């Protein structure tokens, strides 16, 4: 598309607020802004998705899916070359993933960027684990000197965790741990018999460690308009009973109910418009992906919630005389300090006994082992800073083991009628340090089909992550060994310069517009408000100053609700108009 073929139409009527992106953060921003009475325009680059009716594979049996859920290889290789790197890309969920051919980016080093492209964004695709941060996380940068200090502490965000957890609905177990604060939990889902056994063995052998059921945004008790989980299993297909938190099930209905929401899909935001004479953002410029029209929308305040790299890409592409290197980038840190959780390292084992025990129902979560390293002086490591947690599960082997068994015929069929041995495994999710040298920038030579410059991504794990990975594998094996399990084996999928456990694959990309105390070294202040542009907020993963090792979405929810509260109070005071 060439720019001269389009006309720029001016919307005369402005909004109070514009939210860019309708995923987890954008849905929360829209809910909070509209509930506070602001006329809000929610822009989503992808297609519309209606709750329930558009969950086209939900509740289909395996035999009702094309190739029982395998994707068409030629189509996947042509259009989803990056998306298919994640195990989440399957035929049952193919329609949630962005088309890589139409939305290119450049990998200076391997970086897997998994994206949704529809209303609801990755709130329809996420793993749903929700873990609070603690002051161990918020103070980490200050204490060990990596990155810059967070401008907030746990006390600043704790009431907002309470607030979003009650609405989102988190099930889990309270543990009283300093490194993983308890929250507003519904009853947790049960561990199975082998997971309970491992829990007891860990308590016995490793007093500083604990195994618990995953804390997840999946209901075990009904909330208004949402039913408790019915344990069908594949959440990624969508959940018409609203049993897990998504924009569709939770925040968007609340925003719609206020009468203050305008939702506009197919709206690719390319720039935030900055008015130098008034020193503020006045709105956004979009391309309508259906008509190729360029449109401008005005508002008093703009919330970027387009995902970490999506929001940063828009800011980098919003150039003006004052901000030649991207809007709100007087620090020069915009695009830098990219982080993700490093994972795909851990251990597996076979478990003898329990042959007469089984489970019932498809539980949509597993167990969690909270961080136990570098919590206090007793758990201090010499070889690395920060820490990691494990996610895992135990289950009995099924018919798939027949591939490794000799024989065929009636005897094999009879054997596979019985469940196999119990198998248990855990994979670690580790903290990644913020480093200036892990960055994204625009590449003007490569654009998407709507003329937006592509991101060039240059990020890699460092020595701290590699030292941590060795411990992640060993400590997992040590726990399985101590529990008396057999055939304990460690694994690490990382390959140097290749795929397997590359940056991005964790789908927890964070940083690139970090919060901080000093405008000279950070993009956002303690309210997720741009230091340079007071009516511009960024509340998705881009804002993160460090990465923690906890799954980050609940923190984005809390920060978003908190930021909206601040923005609206500033508007009332006349500081934003």
């Amino acid at each position, binding site marked *: 598309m060439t720019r001269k073929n389009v006309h720029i139409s001016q919307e005369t009527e402005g909004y109070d607020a514009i939210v860019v992106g309708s995923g987890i953060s954008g849905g929360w921003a829209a809910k909070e802004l509209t509930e506070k009475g602001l006329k809000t325009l929610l822009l989503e680059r992808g297609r519309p998705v209606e709750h329930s009716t558009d969950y086209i594979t939900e*509740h*289909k049996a395996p035999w009702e899916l094309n190739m029982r859920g395998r994707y*068409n290889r030629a189509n996947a290789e042509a259009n989803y070359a990056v998306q298919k790197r994640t195990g989440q890309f399957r035929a049952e969920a193919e329609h949630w993933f962005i088309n890589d051919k139409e939305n290119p980016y450049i990998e200076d080093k391997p970086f897997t960027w998994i994206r949704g492209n529809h209303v609801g964004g990755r709130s329809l695709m996420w793993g749903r684990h929700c873990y609070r941060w603690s002051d161990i996380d918020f103070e980490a940068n200050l204490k060990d000197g990596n990155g810059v200090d967070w401008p907030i502490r746990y006390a600043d965000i704790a009431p907002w965790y309470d607030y979003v957890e009650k609405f989102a609905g988190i099930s889990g177990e309270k543990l009283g741990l300093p490194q993983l604060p308890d929250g507003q939990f519904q009853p947790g889902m049960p561990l199975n018999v082998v997971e309970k056994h491992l829990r007891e063995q860990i308590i016995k052998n490793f007093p500083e460690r604990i195994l618990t059921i995953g804390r997840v945004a999946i209901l075990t008790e009904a909330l208004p308009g949402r039913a408790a989980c019915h*344990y069908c299993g594949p959440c990624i297909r969508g959940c018409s009973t609203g049993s897990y938190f998504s924009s569709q099930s939770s925040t968007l209905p609340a925003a719609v109910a206020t009468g203050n929401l305008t939702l506009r899909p197919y709206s690719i935001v390319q720039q935030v418009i900055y008015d130098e004479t008034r020193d503020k953002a006045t709105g956004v410029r979009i391309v309508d992906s259906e008509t190729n029209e360029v449109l401008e929308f005005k508002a008093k305040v703009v919330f970027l919630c387009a995902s970490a790299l999506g929001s940063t890409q828009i800011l980098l592409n919003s150039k003006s005389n004052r901000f030649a290197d991207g809007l709100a980038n007087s620090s020069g840190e915009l695009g830098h300090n990219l982080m993700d959780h490093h994972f795909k390292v851990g251990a597996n084992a076979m478990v003898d006994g329990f042959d007469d025990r089984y489970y*019932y129902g498809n539980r949509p979560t597993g167990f969690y082992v909270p961080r136990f390293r570098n919590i206090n002086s007793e758990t201090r490591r010499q070889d690395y800073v920060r820490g990691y947690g494990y996610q895992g599960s135990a289950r009995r082997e099924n018919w798939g083991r027949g*591939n490794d068994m000799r024989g065929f015929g009636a005897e094999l069929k009879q054997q596979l009628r*019985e*469940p196999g041995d119990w198998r248990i495994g855990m994979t670690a999710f580790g903290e990644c340090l913020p480093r200036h040298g892990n960055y994204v920038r625009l590449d003007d030579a490569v654009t998407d089909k709507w003329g937006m410059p592509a991101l060039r991504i240059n990020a890699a794990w460092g020595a701290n992550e590699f030292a941590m990975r060795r411990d992640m594998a060993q400590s997992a094996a040590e726990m399985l060994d101590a529990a008396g399990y057999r055939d304990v084996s460690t694994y690490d999928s990382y390959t140097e310069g290749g795929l397997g456990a590359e940056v991005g694959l964790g789908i927890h990309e964070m940083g690139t517009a970090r919060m901080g105390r000093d405008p000279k070294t950070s993009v956002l202040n303690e309210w997720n408000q741009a230091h340079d542009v007071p009516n511009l907020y960024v509340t998705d993963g881009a804002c993160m100053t460090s990465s923690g090792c906890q799954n980050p979405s609940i923190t984005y929810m809390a920060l978003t609700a908190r930021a909206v509260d601040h923005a609206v109070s500033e508007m009332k005071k006349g500081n934003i108009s």
Partner: protein
Amino acid sequence: MDRREALKRVGFLMGGTVSLSVASGILSGCQAPAAGGYTYQTLSATQGELVATISELIIPETDTPGARAARVHEFADLMLTEWFDVADRDHFLAGLGEIDSVAQSINGATFVDNTEEQQVAILTEMEDAALSDASGDQTPFFSMIKQLTLLGYYTSEIGASQELKYVHTAGEYRGDVPYEEIGRAYS
């Protein structure tokens, strides 16, 4: 589960507030697949019959239907067309040719026209060869067709819900259940 049980379960689970799409999703799993009408895309009809014959030897009809009834040969054709890469597809098709020429040279007839005893003997030899194949270059044909058969059978309606236990929407999760209460492996 049968249709009546499924309906009861829907009512029980959802307290009567279930949306139509959920109900139809749950119930559609109880209907028999449309019979016939499959057109091969990669296999010839003769090759399709050969695949059906081999798959039925791997998972035969016993007190439940086997691979042929579960139409594993059609599933295999679809997988060859849309999932296999070219090298694997060629390797698989060559394997089909080879098993026929082995049958011809030993027994003087194509594999499907051999007696079951002859067929089992050939397959057993192929399995032995596959298990001792240390080249690692290419999955042996026997392993390929065994994998396709197990996958196609145990994810079919017959394999998943008649041979094994298929729980679609449990309504609860219990983590410690006596195995005899379930009685079969889950699909």
